[in-house]
């Protein structure tokens, strides 16, 4: 492992464990009220839910280099980036529960989280993040500022027109954008080799004259290194980069997805590459923490998350008429 301090390593672990525990907890809560008859509209978290278990290292490794002024524009599976970026977890969770205390007072939900304080946004339309991140880059240049934009999409999104348009434009105008493609191999039920004409999207960067790197997200330190270079490049005015991170989708596309299309070995392989476990083993084997210390660290996070969940549960729902508010700033 290159020049990465113990402190940074532990910080990365904290972020990743937090994400994992958060996502697994939401995963359990999602099924409340939905059995024995699975009714997608029922329970404390209704609708679709796309969890990022197994993909923690991409968020942790990239966001470690970001400041609040830097923007992250995400996709539908994005809680990990929200957490790593520093979105306020209380209001984010309340939003996921549809409560008035949520980021959008219940209007947006888990696919539409907006936290302007840390410049985080996301949406449910695949590929929509790329042009929006380009726009942040345009603003940075106009304003002569040194903040950067990170666009996050899956390997499926790399086949959407917006991906190609955005890379071209960012390259042409030398914008401070880092395009992050999380390759978890599956676009719902379609595996990468049946959707993408190349085996690596990082190769596509050449077509736009920008640097492209492929990194295995099993090791967060590898992601951290690659992201550091890309963010520095952007901040120094040297233009955009593409990072493709191999990540491991440990759960279904959405919660409730029976994944009948996914070979058992594929899921098993993903579990064997669990980035959180990998880092844990690194920390223990290098004696950066004892098992006891690690447990304490985990328990602190567990307590924090459990309290946040309780807050979300106890919060009030919005009043129905609030549905009509805030279509426009300043009213009709």
């Amino acid at each position: 492992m290159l020049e990465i301090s113990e402190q940074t390593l532990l910080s990365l672990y904290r972020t990743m464990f937090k994400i994992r525990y958060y996502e697994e907890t939401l995963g359990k809560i999602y099924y409340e009220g939905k059995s024995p008859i699975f009714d997608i509209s029922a329970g404390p978290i209704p609708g679709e839910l796309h969890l990022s278990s197994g993909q923690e290292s991409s968020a942790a490794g990239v966001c470690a280099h970001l400041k609040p002024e830097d923007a992250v524009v995400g996709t539908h599976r994005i809680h990990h980036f929200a957490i790593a970026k520093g979105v306020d977890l209380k209001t984010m969770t309340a939003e996921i529960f549809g409560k008035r205390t949520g980021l959008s007072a219940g209007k947006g939900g888990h696919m539409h989280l907006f936290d302007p304080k840390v410049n985080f946004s996301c949406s449910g339309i695949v590929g929509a993040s790329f042009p929006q991140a380009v726009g942040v880059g345009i603003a940075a240049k106009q304003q002569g500022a040194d903040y950067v934009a990170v666009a996050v999409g899956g390997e499926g999104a790399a086949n959407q027109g917006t991906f190609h348009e955005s890379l071209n434009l960012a390259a042409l105008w030398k914008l401070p954008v880092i395009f992050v493609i999380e390759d978890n191999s599956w676009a719902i039920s379609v595996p990468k080799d049946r959707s993408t004409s190349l085996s690596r999207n990082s190769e596509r960067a050449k077509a736009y004259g920008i640097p492209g790197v492929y990194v295995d997200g099993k090791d967060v330190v590898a992601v951290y290194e690659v992201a550091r270079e890309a963010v520095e490049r952007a901040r120094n005015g040297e233009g955009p980069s593409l990072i493709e991170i191999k990540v491991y989708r440990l759960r279904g596309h959405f919660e409730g997805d029976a994944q009948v299309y996914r070979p058992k070995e594929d899921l098993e392989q993903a579990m064997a590459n669990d980035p959180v476990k990998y880092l844990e083993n690194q920390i223990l084997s290098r004696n950066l923490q004892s098992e006891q210390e690690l447990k304490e660290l985990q328990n602190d996070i567990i307590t924090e998350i459990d309290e946040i969940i309780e807050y979300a549960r106890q919060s009030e729902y919005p009043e129905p008429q609030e549905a009509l508010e805030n279509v426009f700033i300043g009213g009709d």
Partner: protein
Amino acid sequence: MARKLPMYMAIAEAISQEMERDSSVFVMGEDIGAYGGIFGATTGLLDKFGPDRVKDTPISESAFIGGALGAASKGMRPIVELMFVDFFGVAMDQIYNHIAKVTYMSNGNVKVPVVIMTAIGAGYSDAAQHSQTLYGIFAHVPGLKVVVPSNSYDAKGLMISAIRDDNPVMYFFHKGLQGLGWMPSPEEAAVEVPEEPYTIPFGKAMIVREGSDVSVVTASRMVYEALWAAEELEKDGINVEVIDIRTLVPLDKETILNSVAKTGRLLVVDEDYLSYGLTGEIIALVAENALSSLKAPPRRIAVPDVPLPYSRPLEKFVLPSKDKIVKLVKEMM
């Protein structure tokens, strides 16, 4: 013998039977292969017809929807699935500037036998970008037929008609009517469906409930809200006629006008946004042609010009419902 099928199986059966009959019919879309379509519309097709005719695509709507036009120009009859209608944005140029207009621009020399099927509808907290109805937008562009089944019998007949039509057909199925085990759906939508293929003509509305006091004109899932409201209003001696228009384009103007001439009252119920859409269109039709029949001003219920909110009480507040229909009809009497 007929069996009771859920709407998703009726659609898949229609496609299957047409694919058997006509080798130029094929299907493209995201997760329509092994997955059978996110909302079940292509269940069983991959096993039956193989990957050459049932093609899972990358997330490249512009390419495969525009591609449908190209394939049609060479004698194929493609069916493409746009996973959620809300995603139309990424492919809309191909749909409304090309697929819709090539027949006209070529003065009928080029035909475009493309079916674009897509999922619509709210009510299960999928929020602003996954809950829209939007058929009004497509109905507004000349050159597209717009079909909206409300039950499995209609779904099969209308799909077969759509596939056999030499024109582009937008086929909208409501997620909350498909009859999927994991999404609530009125059981009344799963009706008996004949095993043999059959067609239902476009431009023929269905009077699903006869009445004499008010004409409730609607489509898709709102047909059930209207029927449930009618049952309740019956107890108060109000006799409601419910019309399921089944197709927005072509529209069965005759049935609507005859109904209003009979009842004198018009209520249009729509799950799409209120302004500049279906409700305004039906009311304009009646105002232009049957104004003197009206005993009361025409009324409408639709989503009140706000994006669909996520939180359950907010979403419930904006969606048309049986209760809202009951309340408004009583006001109209």
